[in-house]
């Protein structure tokens, strides 16, 4: 197993962790904002998928990767808006509305791809553009660090930067305070004249935008094409990562990295004779164990508190 450690502690592995974490991190940040506002967006998966196709189609049509990215983010925001409209105006159950978006995206993207390009399942005939990689000047020349942190897709850096931006948004702006207040006690927010609906609309649209970034990365960075169900559950992993990260930006980053590491590991481990299905199971196992530990500690604390009161 010596070679396993060699593998994990190689710069290539470090590099690939960041590479596969990117879409998960985007989706997790989006999920976090929606959950903070008390309107959980479980349509991250479908939204990412739709955005991935949109990015490919628009970048192929215009020849501009930037246009593809913008279109992907806009379609993400649009789907966030649609979800908000259904949940907040039409009062449908937000989970059901999000499931509908996910199902629609899964079939709809295949259909749309076929109508647009005639391709079945993979966008091979669309000449889509890639978002550029960036070499970071000084770090690039540092051994190890350069190998891990430099020469990533531009969106990988955007995702890391987003952690800081989301932190600032949630904890350092009036809007962030309102989002947290609305999510925790909407009556309190309402009683001081905050429009709960407006705050939740904004949150869902922002979460859609992050899913848009994640989708664009999938089809214009991670790989260079769109393929059927290419997001492969990352939108749902995001919800687990949000829970594991306990809804804090740093926690969410670490949780995303954990899932990213597990994902990278499962790819790398395929050269050993461990079934990849088993390895791919690990991140979820980690989540479940983590959540159990968290829940047990919480309920123990509550019990202790109660016992103390009785005395």
């Amino acid at each position, binding site marked *: 197993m010596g070679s396993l450690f060699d593998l994990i502690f190689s710069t290539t592995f470090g590099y690939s962790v960041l590479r596969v974490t990117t879409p998960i991190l985007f989706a997790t940040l989006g999920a976090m904002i929606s959950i903070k506002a008390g309107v959980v967006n479980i349509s991250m998966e479908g939204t990412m998928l739709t955005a991935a196709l949109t990015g490919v189609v628009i970048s192929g049509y215009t020849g501009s990767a930037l246009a593809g990215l913008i279109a992907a983010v806009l379609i993400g925001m649009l789907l966030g808006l649609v979800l908000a409209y259904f949940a907040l105006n039409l009062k449908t159950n937000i989970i059901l509305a999000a499931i509908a978006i996910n199902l629609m995206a899964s079939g709809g993207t295949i259909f749309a791809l076929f109508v647009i390009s005639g391709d079945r399942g993979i966008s091979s005939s669309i000449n889509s553009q890639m978002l550029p990689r960036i070499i970071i000047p000084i770090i690039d020349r540092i051994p190890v660090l350069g190998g891990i942190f430099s020469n990533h897709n531009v969106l990988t850096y955007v995702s890391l930067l987003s952690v800081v931006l989301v932190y600032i948004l949630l904890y350092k702006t009036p809007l962030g305070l309102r989002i*947290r207040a609305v999510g925790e006690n909407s009556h309190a927010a309402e009683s001081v004249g905050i429009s709960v609906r407006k705050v939740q609309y904004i949150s869902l649209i922002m979460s859609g935008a992050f899913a848009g970034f994640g989708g664009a990365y999938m089809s214009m960075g991670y790989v260079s094409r769109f393929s059927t169900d290419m997001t492969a559950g990352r939108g749902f992993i995001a919800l687990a990562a949000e829970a594991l990260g306990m809804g804090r930006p740093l926690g969410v980053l670490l949780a995303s990295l954990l899932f990213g590491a597990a994902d990278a590991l499962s790819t790398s481990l395929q050269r050993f004779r461990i079934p990849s299905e088993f390895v791919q199971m690990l991140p979820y196992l980690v989540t479940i164990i983590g959540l159990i530990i968290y829940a047990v500690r919480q309920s123990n604390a509550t019990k202790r508190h109660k016992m103390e009161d009785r005395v």
Partner: protein
Amino acid sequence: MEVYLEAMEEILRMESITKVYPNGIVANKNVDFSVRKGEIHAIVGENGAGKSTLMKILFGMEQPEEGEIKLKGETINISSPSAAIRYGIGMVHQHFMLVPSLTVAENLVMGIEPKRNNFFFDYKKAVQMTDEVSKKYNLSIDPKAVVDTLAVGKKQKIEILKALVRGAEILILDEPTAVLTPQETKELFEELINLKNQGFTIIFISHKLKEVKQITDRLTILRNGRSMGVHDTKNTSEQEISRLMVGRDVLLKVEKEPAKPGKTVLKTNQLSYYSDADTPVVKKIDMDIKTGQILGIAGVEGNGQGELVDLLTGMKKASGGHILIHGKETTELSVKEVRDMKVSHIPEDRMIYGVSGDGSIEENLISDRFDEKKYNIRLLMNVKKLTELAKQLVADYSIRCASEKQQVRMLSGGNIQKVVVAREFSSEPELIIANQPTRGIDVGSTEFIRKQLVKLRDKGTAVLLVSADLNEVLELSDSLMVMYEGEIVAYFQDASVVTEMELGLYMLGLKRMSEKELGGVMSG
């Protein structure tokens, strides 16, 4: 109607306010209400008298069907709480409107956040604002404390500060002392008087007469949604207020023979219950109910009556002590097991525990017996028989409805309560635990339910009647106990000798019986 000429000082006037809720309940009927600048004005009345509705209208949470509101002589339209805040009206809700995980300062400035560089939330400024306003009005609080960690009294302070920092001139406090300890209440009163001296107008909703006497200048009494007039507090005695609140003239007389108590049905021994907080809610209660007896429990709401009923019916588990029904220990039994011992329960909140609003009348009526053998044919329910039963009960209890298949939610409050009563009374109970059985329902249904209770007692059923309605407990009870702060503070073996005033003194905690006098609880 008394006429007040001091229109000069009047800051707010509500004229002939009428509010009818969609379910047909008339919460306010032609209510006139006016407050003067710089006074503490009480709104008193029993539960369901329309106090809260009137204040919700004033704070823009409800819209009246009729009537108008004038602020400083100008007619205004208060369409929402934010509009009320803009007009300088602030409200301290009974259930605090705070975000627990945020700090005091963050809660305070929520919605009016100070900004730095026009973008960032300026927390330092928020802390500074909190400090300033708390110093100015002498309401000391740590701006950086997380709300969740604070005691109730402090949380209430934040609510008051929240209103003040938004420029409120008129403060509405909805039963502010209900959740406070005596010490916190004292502190609150000092703060309120201080605010009054600074020119603020305070509307104080309460049904605790002692407090009303202590702190208010004038009071408006509401009864059954109508105003019973405005009075100067210092010229009005507690007796007069309570007479106007309760309204002896509408007292419902129930004919009943003297009770013939038989053997003990329900007995408790040192029964106690602690909530999550470290205060006991039910303290070492001993009681004893016999067949053919109605034992009433009087008391201001929130003194542990609800928890006591929950313990007896198995909905909550006791922290200490024992419950015995027919001599058998039931302390640890489930709700179903307790009910199977021929115990019926009329819960306090009919919409939550009494009925399933979306279900039909029939479904609700059969919900406690559909699993009995006689209503089933092997694996299937005998629908025909169940419908017959439902039809019979609808007729017996004169539930006014289109058919027994009608949704319960569509009925009036009185008829919904009759559905509950029909189910609970028709199961041949040996013990009935009735918690506020006639709250908020029409006079006809009230009379019907009370008569049914007496009828069952005459047949030998033991009845525990919990009610905040003094008339009700006095009229129906054979024996009577008073609960105050989780304890039995008075016991009268013969309820007919008790006067309302006497009861009031015990209910308000002004008087309590000695251990020796209470000894009757066990032996009686």
